[in-house]
């Protein structure tokens, strides 16, 4: 009898499996390189946290769309006072956290206050710096008061660091995040995968997918093998551009090439001789062949830039001409600066391949004009300590992935130590300006100023490279922020 039952069970299991194969596929396995250290987007800079949770599990008052625009999120609408200081947000009704509690104005107040508190561990605390008061009018209305007009405020609230959390579930957020999104957190096997399931009580358009698995594969070889062997359905942020032609040629896969907010730059220590001499920096800029770097390090993926601004942004100005590849001019400039025989410097390279490979090419190009750049490969922790905080470097390569971050040049303490009062004034003006046209003009001026001062070597805009099985549709090609928004993803029949 027992034998018979187990046979029956087996038969039914088989038929279920057979059935599942024919039904519309609602499961997806998405791979990415880095695993989140924990699952609280509001207390770490790790992009991997947002890559898993942004928009899927957590939402903010406003949100980024795939094209980079900022639209309403948990806030249905808002009203801005004429002086630009008071924002009144009206929240959506019937929004529930995954634990069943209601999301209301008090949660918004709690979340924003937590982010700007004295003991806050929010990695982007500066986003909230202008807030002077947050008050609750009723359960669906929040009023935020600023100390000065801020043209970026709605944009700032769209960041993953500004998502809305609940005081009831905040203690467990690092391991078991409770948000309001279209997916609920289900399970985390550390070192391996995170699983999400569909939130059937979602307030907005429900997701098509039922089960989502994020896999973490850091090794580029393993990444390639996992896609080729069809272990994963999509790989977002594929680490090896050299493999993409193979995927493109294979009808089983599609390759998505999009934009990111990552300006990849040869950061230069502006206070360290000889880089304090603008002639030397200008020579540096002309010694670099961007095309060779994009071809050699990124296998052709990436848009050359001539300033610290994303080319897909309408306010972008193409300034690549001011630093065209011209090794003879570079040598001449070096000679004028008193370095006819070149000089020695250091080149610190963090782990990503754009830096490691790009660095090898740049070192070879600099050698052509007599600059001997000693390569040191460093890990991120070491890079943060010695380069970023210690400012003990000559050159380094890094991709600045924060959106709209040209204002870092207004901070003379920032690691490349560019100090120009005119630029600082420009950014102060920009921040206080809310008129879109005036903003565009100011942003153009800012781009021209840093390009003309040759603050850093501007290399290329990092491309967002993803591979997916041919049937996957609705994935973001671009990366306006670190996110893998799966709320609109489905399988083609």
């Amino acid at each position, binding site marked *: 009898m027992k034998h018979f039952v187990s046979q029956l069970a087996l038969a039914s299991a088989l038929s279920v499996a057979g059935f599942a194969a024919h039904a519309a596929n609602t499961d997806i396995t998405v791979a990415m390189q880095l695993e989140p250290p924990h699952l609280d987007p509001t207390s770490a800079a790790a992009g991997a946290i947002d890559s898993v949770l942004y928009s899927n599990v957590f939402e903010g008052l406003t949100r980024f769309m795939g094209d980079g625009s900022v639209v309403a999120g948990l806030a249905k609408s808002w009203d801005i006072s004429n002086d630009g200081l008071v924002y009144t947000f009206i929240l959506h009704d019937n929004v529930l956290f995954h634990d069943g509690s209601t999301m209301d104005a008090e949660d918004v107040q709690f979340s924003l206050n937590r982010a700007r508190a004295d003991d806050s561990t929010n990695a982007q605390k500066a986003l909230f710096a202008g807030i002077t008061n947050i008050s609750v009018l009723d359960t669906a209305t929040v009023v935020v008061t600023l100390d000065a007009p801020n043209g970026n405020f709605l944009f700032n609230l769209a960041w993953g660091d500004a998502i809305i959390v609940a005081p009831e579930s905040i203690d467990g957020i690092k391991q078991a995040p409770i948000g309001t999104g279209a997916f609920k957190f289900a399970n985390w096997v550390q070192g391996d995968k995170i699983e999400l399931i569909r939130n059937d009580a979602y307030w907005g358009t429900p997701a098509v997918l039922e089960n989502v698995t994020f896999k973490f594969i850091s090794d580029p070889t393993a990444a*390639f093998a996992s896609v080729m062997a069809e272990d994963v359905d999509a790989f977002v942020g594929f680490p090896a551009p050299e*493999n993409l032609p193979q995927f493109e040629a294979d009808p089983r896969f599609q390759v998505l090439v999009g934009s990111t907010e990552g300006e990849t730059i040869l950061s230069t220590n502006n206070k360290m001789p000889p880089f304090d001499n603008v002639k030397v920096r200008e020579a540096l800029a002309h010694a670099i062949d961007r095309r060779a770097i994009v071809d*050699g390090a990124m296998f052709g993926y990436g848009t050359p830039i001539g300033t610290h601004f994303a080319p897909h942004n309408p306010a972008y100005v193409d300034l690549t001409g001011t630093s065209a590849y011209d090794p003879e001019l570079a040598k001449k400039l070096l000679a004028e600066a008193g370095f006819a025989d070149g000089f020695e410097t250091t080149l610190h390279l963090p782990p990503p391949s754009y830096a490691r*490979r790009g660095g090898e090419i740049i*070192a070879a190009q600099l050698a052509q004009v007599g600059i001997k750049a000693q390569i040191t490969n460093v890990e991120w922790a070491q890079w943060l300590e010695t380069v970023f905080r210690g400012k003990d470097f000559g050159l380094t390569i890094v991709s600045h992935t924060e959106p709209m971050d040209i204002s870092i040049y207004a901070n003379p303490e920032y690691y490349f130590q560019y100090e120009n009062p005119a630029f600082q004034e420009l950014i102060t003006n920009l921040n206080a300006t809310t008129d879109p046209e005036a903003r565009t003009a100011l942003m153009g001026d800012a781009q021209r100023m840093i390009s003309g001062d040759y603050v850093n070597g501007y290399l290329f805009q990092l491309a967002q490279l993803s591979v997916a099985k041919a049937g996957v549709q609705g994935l973001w090609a671009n990366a306006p922020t670190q996110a893998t928004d799966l709320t609109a993803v489905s399988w083609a029949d």
Partner: protein
Amino acid sequence: MNRNLIIGLILSAIAILAALVSFIWTPFDHVAMNIPAKLQTPNLTHWFGTDHFGRDIFSMIMVGARTSIAVAFVAVGIGMGLGIPLGLWAAARKGSYVDELIMRANDLIFAFPSLVIAILITAIFGAGAVNAIIAIGIFNIPVFARVVRGAALPIWEREFILAARVAGKKAARISVEHILPNVLNLLIVQATIQFSLGILAEAALSYVGLGAQPPTPSWGRMLADAQTLVSIAPHLALIPGFAIIITVMGLNLMGDGLRDHLNPRTRVART
């Protein structure tokens, strides 16, 4: 001369010769990039093809031999330089606290997972050839200390040592004048084995990016660079891989051959 020794000598000679010749001649400049000419398969101009930057792999293999050999050689040197005196000292003071302390310290170092520690050291103190040498060298110290002590103990019991003692020679002098020459054969054999292990360790460290830094070529880093290209250009992984295998095999065969040649009865610890 036995067969192992001859084959071993020939195989190791290839790597050593390549390293030496690279100082005066390589077919191309090993750091010169030519990105339009990248990923060529072996051909008449580039005998081993070109890598992802269009560099000549043959030249890189030649200069890479230099890196591998230099790192392993100095690491073995550190092991011998510190391990041999410690081993001699322990043997001379057999059973004393010094002996106990040295041997316990040896055991302790052996207890550490060597690869993990090497990765740690290079990660903590910075990636690079010098730190790779230190990381590999540390684990060579107890190997030599143990081999020397083990081989020296029976020699201390021999009559000519007793004679030297009666003649009033100090232990240190006896160690250097009488013990050391008698354990030299064993040391040479052990050194070849540690040398081959050193080359493997250097390759592993470079593979994870912690060995010699670019543009200095290293076989391990060539393998790391080849990782994602192996399916479109397998020669990028095959050639450095074969270079490592041939060199390590050559050294091991040489070690085995030397052992049989120098003293057929001694056995060397190899783990």
